[in-house]
């Protein structure tokens, strides 16, 4: 019995699940037997729920707009550079990387690769089948994992990017724990780790780095992009 939570698409593995083609002659009528499940009318039930969800959020944002003012500083002055000059918060992860790497790497190559990687996710069968990373071919995959992680850690140490090193090591530790776990593990958490595919680990690492780098760029960087403690300013 498979514990997977989905059915793969019809053409995800053509050898195992050949596509079925139905020929319907003119005399017989086509009959489709599909699993029916309970549905709700979009009008009015679903639209009503969506409206309520949006209204609740609107109340929250209106309250925030009444309590907190949007920042407005002095008029733009090209001859006076504030220190530090910070980008909007969602780009501060990028700006933090610009501190360590040349602009062509941190500003062009990395974001370009991230967007490319996100776009291609659904076009690889490995992400569709989503088998646990270390369930098959464990020894070889573990070797590759150690080489790739080792190279990444070395790279981050050489460029002294310790803020990105910490999340990398934490995710790597969980991956090693996943490699030591199996679907038969007594602990539910380890069964969960064992079932997670490669894309899950890469995405979680990306999310972790994104949150950490953005938070550091927002709260922990002061004049000259030096490290500051937000509670000491």
């Amino acid at each position: 019995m498979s514990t997977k939570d989905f059915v793969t698409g019809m053409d995800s593995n053509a050898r195992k699940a050949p596509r079925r083609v139905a020929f319907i002659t003119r005399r017989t009528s086509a009959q489709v037997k599909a699993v029916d499940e309970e549905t709700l009318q979009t009008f009015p039930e679903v639209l009503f729920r969506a409206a309520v969800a949006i209204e609740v959020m609107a109340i929250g944002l209106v309250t925030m707009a009444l309590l907190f003012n949007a920042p407005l500083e002095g008029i733009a002055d090209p001859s006076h550079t504030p220190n530090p000059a910070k980008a909007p918060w969602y780009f501060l992860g990028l700006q933090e990387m610009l501190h360590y790497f040349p602009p062509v790497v941190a500003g062009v190559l990395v974001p370009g690769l991230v967007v490319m990687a996100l776009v291609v996710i659904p076009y690889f069968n490995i992400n569709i089948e989503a088998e646990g990373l270390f369930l098959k071919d464990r020894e070889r995959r573990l070797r590759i994992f150690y080489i790739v992680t080792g190279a990444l850690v070395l790279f981050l140490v050489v460029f002294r990017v310790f803020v990105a090193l910490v999340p990398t090591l934490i995710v790597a530790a969980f991956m090693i724990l996943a490699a030591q776990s199996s679907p038969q593990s007594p602990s539910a958490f380890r069964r969960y780790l064992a079932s997670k595919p490669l894309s899950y680990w890469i995405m979680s690492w990306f999310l972790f780095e994104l949150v950490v780098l953005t938070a550091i760029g927002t709260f922990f960087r002061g004049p000259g992009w030096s490290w500051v403690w937000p509670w000491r300013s």
Partner: protein
Amino acid sequence: MAKTVDQYFDDLRDTRVWRSIFRSGTGSSTLKRSLAIQQNVFLHLFATKVRRRMLSFSATWYLGTLTLGTFLMLVVTGILLMLYYHPSVPQAYADTKDLQFVVSSGLFLRNLHRWSAHAMVFLVFAHMFKVFYRGAYRPPREFNWVIGIVLLLVTLLLSYTGYLLPWDQLAYWAITVGSNIASAVPVFGDKIHFMLLGGNLVNANALLRFYVLHCMILPLAAIFFIAIHFWRIRKDGGLYAHQSEPSTLTKTTLAKEAQ
């Protein structure tokens, strides 16, 4: 006997004018309710029916719906802000000051626009990660995932171009820092930088370009892709449902299983 409110509504919906506007006709039968969606140019992007289990909060956290909500709020507050704003130097800053201190509810409008914008960027990211962890990018939904990535980029650009418009120190230097990254693109970097700003520095030309991008080009692009994004949900079989989630089976299916 006095009529109830519902009956007045029914009478209204039966009038010739109402029926000339809404093609679906009156009545609350399932058919009429389906037609209310199907026969409406905006609502027909959605399916007429939705699986009940997809409406539980845990399935989606309503992140897509809420993102649409922030977008609608941004359109409304943005249009109102445009009534008081000139994209020129130094008038842009004076207009922002006026919004802050002179215009009735101007401060509230600007606050709401700003916080909604931050909320939208956050929600778009949250929506993307939620969809990923659910595995909802699986065929046949691949292309809708790609459109989602395009919408993420459009949202970031919308927020980024809007950041310059107050023309204060915060805006000016954030855009200077950000646009310098464009110069790092190999070969074409300086050309892209020049095209984006309409000059070598952030100046009045850059303000006008960012204004046109922010108020015209990018919102139209967003609406275009949002429409496809919603329509594809319907075409790709509705929201992605897990096998393991409890589904309430109808009688026919139960009868079939009993055999």
